């Protein structure tokens, strides 16, 4: 494994499968009464969040605690950061405190890459979402969820599976991380969005682009709806919320156009009534809640592999879990 997780583009197929398989094993823990492993005992993990995030931060925190790491939450709000401290000085401070890993969420694209490349910090850097760049653990948990439904089993990939990602691709770090990872895992990715929300240069990405959701639905194994922020309307990306919903929103009628086995995914938080109706969000085909649970397993796997330096052969099995039960 590599030392940092900044972009899914850095993951080879073997890396990605190792993370998915490890997460699969770690997921078995969640069914146990005692969910804790001693693996990261004595290691310090800092959650450095420059942007509000309840879901991702909580998910990382649960993952860290289940691996027995010492967890420090360093929120930009109410800290020296809000008083104008630079990223560099914050990083030097964390380094001085002995952080073994820093989980960073930042509003600026590239901030985790800066941390990973700088000599400000020697621990592992895990990107928990940077601006409109990447959100690698989200893509990993998405792939994990897809694999469970579409091609279950250790060592399996997503070869030939047709994944449709709908919504604000331009501003989506989830979309960017997904396109790299899904391509690495052999899936065929199609983005669907109004042309205003498709980045310039997407023709060089390993994906297809369509402006017509209805045409793509019957050829979809997993459909991922991205959140569309209402503010985008004011910047003239689309005329009205209702028009967006009509053309690119997921409702019951559209869900019926999907193949029988297809799942509907959403990274959350969902804007009900905008990109997804309640009927779809609450249907058994929607995996949004399952994705949250899978997120913990994936983040445990990432922390375990980056900090434990372990290979799959060392992944926690009965010995580790019996130790945990002691």
């Amino acid at each position, binding site marked *: 494994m590599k030392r940092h997780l900044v972009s899914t583009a850095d993951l080879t197929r073997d890396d990605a499968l190792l993370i998915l398989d490890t997460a699969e094993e770690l997921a078995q823990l969640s069914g146990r009464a005692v969910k804790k492993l001693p693996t990261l005992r004595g290691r310090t993990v800092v959650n450095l969040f420059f942007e509000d995030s309840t879901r991702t931060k909580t998910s990382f925190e649960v993952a860290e605690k289940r691996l027995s790491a010492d967890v420090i939450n360093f929120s930009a709000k109410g800290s020296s950061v809000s008083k104008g401290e630079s*990223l560099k000085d914050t990083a030097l401070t964390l380094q001085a405190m002995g952080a073994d890993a820093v989980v960073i969420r930042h509003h600026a*694209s*590239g901030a985790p890459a*800066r941390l990973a490349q700088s000599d400000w910090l020697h621990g592992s850097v895990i990107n928990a979402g940077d601006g*409109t*760049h990447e959100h690698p653990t989200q893509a990993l948990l998405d792939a994990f969820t897809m694999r469970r439904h579409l091609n279950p089993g250790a060592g399996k990939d997503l070869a030939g599976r047709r994944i449709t990602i709908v919504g604000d691709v331009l501003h989506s770090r989830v979309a*960017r991380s997904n396109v790299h990872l899904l391509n690495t895992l052999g899936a065929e990715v199609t983005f669907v969005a109004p042309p205003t929300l498709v980045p*310039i240069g997407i023709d*060089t990405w390993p994906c297809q682009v369509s402006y017509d959701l209805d045409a793509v639905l019957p050829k979809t194994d997993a459909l991922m709806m991205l959140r569309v922020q209402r503010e985008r309307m004011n910047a003239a990306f689309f005329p009205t919320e209702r028009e967006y919903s009509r053309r690119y929103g997921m409702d019951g009628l559209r869900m019926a156009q999907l193949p029988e086995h297809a799942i509907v995914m959403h990274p959350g938080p969902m804007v009900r009534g905008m990109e997804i109706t309640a009927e779809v969000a609450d249907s058994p085909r929607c995996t949004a809640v399952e994705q949250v649970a899978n997120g913990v397993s994936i983040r445990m796997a990432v922390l375990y592999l980056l900090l434990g330096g372990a290979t799959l052969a060392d992944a926690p099995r009965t010995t580790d879990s019996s130790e945990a039960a002691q």
Partner: protein
Amino acid sequence: MTTYLIRNAQILGGAPKDIYIADGLFAEIGENLGHEADVDIDAHGLIALPGLVDLHTHLREPGREDAETVLTGTQAAAMGGYTAVHAMANTFPVADTAGVVEQVWRLGQEHGYCDVQPVGAVTVGLEGKKLAELGAMHDSAAGVRVFSDDGKCVDDAVIMRRALEYVKAFDGVVAQHAQEPRLTDGAQMNEGQVSGELGLTGWPAVAEESIIARDVLLAAHVGSRVHICHLSTAGSVEIVRWAKQKGWDVTAEVTPHHLLLTDELVRSYDPVYKVNPPLRTAADVEALRAALADGTIDAVATDHAPHPAEDKDCEWAVAAMGMVGLETALSVVQQTMVDTGLLNWEGVADRMSRRPARIGRLTGHGRPISVGEPANLVLFDPAYRGAVNPDEFATRSRNTPYKGMDLPGRVHATFLRGTATVLAGELVEL
């Protein structure tokens, strides 16, 4: 005054000749001159060019003396072979009054490393709303003829039209920073494949090209001249080429970094590559080189933009835009234009001295190296090869994208009206 005998210099790359400098002038030029000079310089293998003229320099004083002062900036200019620089107006306070431009001009005179020709702001406070007192700045001791809101675009078409018309009264020129503001709101880098992948807000080429197209049409309409700052795209080249074919009085400059670097470098998220206009694509670089070679682009201008370390040692989004460039410009031009066969040394002298001086109406600069002319001269060693070491820079700032890069050539000596400002590659104490 100290007299100098420069032996075997290749003037504009020609056959070796001796140059005798006395009383601030080229006193004699020929073979095997027999003068007794105070200082003898062996210029074997060195190229002699007229002192370089920069149309686009940020000296930061007054206001940001932590980044650069007139003294350190002109020392950097001398080290780069420059004998005149145009100091941009985006200082604090803005150079939008006769008082500020005179102050900057006088500082240049006092220090003596390089002539400082202040650029006056087009509009009060660079706000694009109200014309600054352009006439007063022209009539001041600084004698301003180039006006620019550089850093900001004069985006209001009426204000631009009026400025273009108004400066005709004193043979002025408006140097436009072409950037349509609404198309570049929050822009972080060139809009293209790389920005899409990196999730950085794009700065589309059309935001530059649409303003240039408008302004060449405006200049033609009112019969004035317009100068385009730091032209950076292949499309801009096409528009300027078209305007010149029409016979309109349009000139343009390109920076050294846009001749060499591309937006691929942004993949590192290292803000040393953050600059405005942004680094573009390899196709743009190729078009810019060709346009500089065929004369569509008139001049190389550094856009030397010093910033203190903390403004670059941070995440990309909050980093300052700009690069220092005075001390590396000639080397970058050698690498991109001379070593590639696109320009000879005569062409370099034209694009880095003669034409920029003419655009700025600097009558004492950009003149031929011939007897009786003011001795503004740079001796350049094109055979030198070495890695760029920012710690050796004279500029107060270190934000160079060339750190550690092997660039050809270095300045051996610079003369400003017969006074050596640089000798044997070292600054002279004045």
